[in-house]
């Protein structure tokens, strides 16, 4: 069997690795037009800032692919002939496959802004985006970044590291407030400003103006303000990179490639995973397209089982994610809606320095814990997930909160403060029973396995 994989991002590479792990005989071809070797997309910023070399972004040494008999092809797939099981490349070559995995990722959004196709306008999704920014950096005196998501703040931090003054334009009233609850969102807004990045809330891009040479020279906002800049970063989200599939009529597209619960597309031997996959019936509480590292990895693993005839449904489990907003680390486990929900109670503790916070969500009715949101504090994924999965009562969680703490040694432990806050708000007199420590955490986790 020959499995061709379009895209060597985390989804495609995970699929290739698991195909090989599960089956020694399957022939695997990993196709990418972007780079010869897989790299960590989430680390693009570190290469630009000089924390790492480009090669350091590659999780596997070059010999890995040969050793695991994963054929690498650097080429652009122009068309999928789904009826003939054939790929057609930009240089006219073709390749036959038995099963195809589409893992072609996403591209940054353009919402039809005038001037969006000028030079020195770009996003930060691909290796080429990074390379382009590197090429034009010397021409940038000031920059504007449009869009208040994870890539927006990263791009602002990147430019800032090169001592380029940055204006970060966000449509919302505070940073990423459609994903972060208000307190956390305001915390990040404050933090961005403390790094001398000019955060413009409630501000939308209207037009990008030509500087006379076909490149961006300034922008105007919807409020009519004109801002001079030599670079406009477009980071208002991403969307599936599926335009090359439009002529393959058998493959049903929505915004992405439509897939069923087994990640199969409308063609039975074609699958889609990662950023470009759009679930027909997403699980409750989940979106049809989730352009996230972790879901890409889980889909890659799932699709390998399914292609090898070991049918399993894609189940991303309890929601989790993480990010770093300049210096503030962020982790989320479970249900933490930005605007809350009826019946969901929340315990929010914030350190007086305004850069550390713990939020614990639980059902008002029965006290079962639902979600954790951490700012500047690390919690154990497995412990939080187990509490949520087992419907543990929030008071039980609070008394054992030390089990979750994952901060480095000698760091101040705030669990007692969180418990105090709960006591204050509820008039209870709970006490913290467990402090930070691996042995207790592992014993707690092991108990889960036996039940």
């Amino acid at each position, binding site marked *: 069997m020959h499995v061709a994989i379009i895209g060597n991002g*985390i989804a495609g590479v995970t699929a290739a690795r698991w195909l090989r792990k599960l089956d020694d005989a399957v022939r695997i071809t990993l196709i990418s037009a972007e780079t010869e070797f897989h790299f*960590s997309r*989430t*680390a693009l910023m*570190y290469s630009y*800032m*000089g*924390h*790492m*070399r*480009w*090669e*350091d*972004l590659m*999780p596997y*040494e*070059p*010999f890995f692919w040969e050793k695991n008999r994963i054929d690498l092809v650097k080429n652009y797939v122009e068309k999928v002939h789904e009826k003939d099981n054939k790929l057609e490349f930009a240089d006219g070559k073709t390749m036959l496959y038995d099963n195809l995995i589409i893992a072609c990722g996403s591209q940054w959004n353009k919402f039809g802004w005038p001037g969006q196709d000028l030079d020195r306008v770009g996003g930060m999704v691909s290796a080429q985006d990074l390379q382009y920014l590197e090429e034009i950096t*010397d021409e*940038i*005196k000031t920059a504007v970044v449009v869009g208040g998501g994870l890539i927006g703040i990263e791009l602002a931090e990147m430019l800032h590291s*090169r*001592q*380029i003054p940055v204006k970060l334009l966000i449509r919302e009233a505070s940073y990423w407030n459609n994903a972060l609850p208000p307190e956390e969102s305001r915390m990040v807004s404050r933090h961005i400003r*403390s*790094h001398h990045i000019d955060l413009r809330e409630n501000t939308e891009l209207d037009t990008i103006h030509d500087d006379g040479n076909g490149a961006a020279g300034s922008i105007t906002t919807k409020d009519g303000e004109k801002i001079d800049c030599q670079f406009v970063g477009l980071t208002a989200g991403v969307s599936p990179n599926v335009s090359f599939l439009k002529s393959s009529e058998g493959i049903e597209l929505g915004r992405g490639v439509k897939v069923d619960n087994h990640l199969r597309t409308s063609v039975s031997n074609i699958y889609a995973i990662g950023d470009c996959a759009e679930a027909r019936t997403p699980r409750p509480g989940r979106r049809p397209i989730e352009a996230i590292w*972790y879901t890409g*990895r889980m889909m890659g*693993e*799932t699709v390998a*089982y399914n292609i090898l005839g070991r049918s*399993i449904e*894609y*189940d*991303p*489990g309890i929601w*989790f994610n*993480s*990010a*770093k907003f*300049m*210096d503030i*680390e962020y*982790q989320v486990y479970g249900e933490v809606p930005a605007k809350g929900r009826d019946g969901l109670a929340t315990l929010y503790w914030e350190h007086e320095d305004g850069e550390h916070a713990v939020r614990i969500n639980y059902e008002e009715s029965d006290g079962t814990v639902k979600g954790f949101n951490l700012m500047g504090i*690390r919690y154990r*994924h*497995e412990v939080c*997930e187990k509490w949520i999965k087992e419907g543990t009562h929030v008071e039980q969680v609070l008394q054992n909160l030390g089990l979750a703490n994952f901060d*480095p*040694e*000698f*760091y*101040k432990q705030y669990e007692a403060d969180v418990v105090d806050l709960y006591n204050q708000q509820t008039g209870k007199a709970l006490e913290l029973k467990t402090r930070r420590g*691996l*042995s207790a955490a*592992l*014993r707690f*986790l*092991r108990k889960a*396995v036996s039940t």
Partner: protein
Amino acid sequence: MPSKSTNKSAIQYLGLVLFAIALLIFTAMLGLDNYKFTESQLIAPFAPAEGETVYWKQEAATFHQAHLKIAAEETGLLTETMRSTFAAEKKLKETYSIAQARVKEFYETEGLPQDVDEEGNPKTNEDGTPVTAQIWQVELPSWKLESERTGWIKNAATGPVSDNPWLFFLLTFGLGALGGLLYIIPKFTAKPGIKNDHIFHNPLTRGLDLSWRSLFLTFTTVGILVYGFYYMDDKLFWPAVTGVIALVIIALVLFAHNSFGRDARDAGPEGLSGWLGILAGTYFIGFYVLLYWASHHIVAWVAMVSPLSEGVYQFFSGKESGGEASQWFLYGLMYTTIMIVMGIRMISKYRHNKYQIIRTISVMFFQLAFAFMIPEILVALNKPWYDFKNIWPLDYDFFFSWSIDGFLNTPGSLGLFMLGWGIFLIIVGVPLMVHLVGKRWYCSWVCGCGGLAETMGDPWRQLSDKSLRAWKFERYIIHGVLVAAIVMTGMTLYTYFTGTGELFGIQTGGIQKWYGFLIGAGFAGVVGTGFYPLMGNRVWCRFGCPLAAYLGLVQRFQSRFRITTNGSQCISCGNCSTHCEMGIDVRHYAQRGQDIVRASCVGCGVCAAVCPRGVLRLENSSEDVATRAETERVIHISEEGGVSLMG
């Protein structure tokens, strides 16, 4: 304007300038003094031993002095003023060889003197023929030139440095430290957080590509082996044995482990764009070569710190004189000063991270108190020089006969305590502490080598090689050094207890000398520290330190310490691997959700600090370590249970 360097204030630029001036003076001062020898200095080391009663020994000594005097007059050693240590060395050598040849010629033509017994009566063999002295007992030995050279040149120095040692001390140590602090202190005003911007843009810290790195490594290694030939009195045996072992290891890694022909991930910058790092590395290598093998060329540095050494000595001993510095005092003082200044830098860089702050203060303290001050005070009090935190086999001469005798001959119980403490650390301290908290208790909290790596070496931690190939080399080399240290020490103890200086045809003295040269000086110093800017700051600790190997074996098989990974949060970004000074590919484990148990991990905690997603934590617990460290533990989609975090 866009810039590929960090923002610096005027004060910081001033600090850099002052530091550069100090470095310039430090370098130039080696050429400032003149050297003028006097007769009394020249012949003093050859005076007959006090109370020497054997007539021909007295005669030989007087004879040596006389010939040195004559030769010195002929060569002009006592009348000319030499303008450099090189000229001085040349003239000394010339004078010495003339005297040496004449002495030898005399005994060869006149015959060797008859030996005498304890009462002074001539000794004879059973058949009545006289017992004569051996030629090596009466000739002018070559080693004496080498051992006296530094002292002669130091005493012969005249000029600005000898006249103003304190001035030069202030212009080098003082100005350098001031410059460093002016550069470092303003960093405390920046917001706390990870400070790795532009380290791979900076020509000082971006490193070398593989071919340039190999070139430096090859030249240095071959250079050391060739010099070793002369160092071992023109004997090829030990350099040849070492060369063969090196070739065997290279062959094993390349062919038995299939590294040959595999593309290495050459992440180095193009060509010589890391030129400042190359200059720094070359300077460090040069410094160590002079320090270990040519201390007669750095007498100006030693003279400069001598008043301080004397002050310390006289203060603690209550004596009026004595305590002249050796190059080891100079080295200790430099080491400590650099560690303190760069320790402050480390704290400024990681001041959001309490683990790093406490750890850095710990290594600074142990260097200042245990490695530098306490030994100096002990010597002033007429006790053996002893670093209470140094442990065999890093402290490779701990069991040498002079060392053991030194402990045993110290009046009172202190010497015995030192000996017992050293042995206790080896047998109980190391395994127990490593079991409890991992080898980090030593390597990144206490050790001087580790301390220098973590402070001065921190700017270069990212240059360690993370390839699988490097790991294979590492395992052969470091365990090879451990075996060498054990064999060498075993022979030392054999000789100590039996009095036999030879085992299986190999001389104990020879293996000790070679180990000290190759491992003690060449590996730990020249390569270990000289290569900071070329191969990262833990070259010695990773590839060479036999104590690290011992600690590592305990850590790998019998320790509670590990680095845990946090569920599935890893994004494979590679910050952990890049900034691991030991070249561990941390990401390999983190992205598999696997706990990390590695012999080489020194527990510096930087991987956990630079992780942008809070994935790594240094922890102590033996619970479930087998299952969590052995298998891939990323989110598994299993056919039965759906998503599960459990491996």
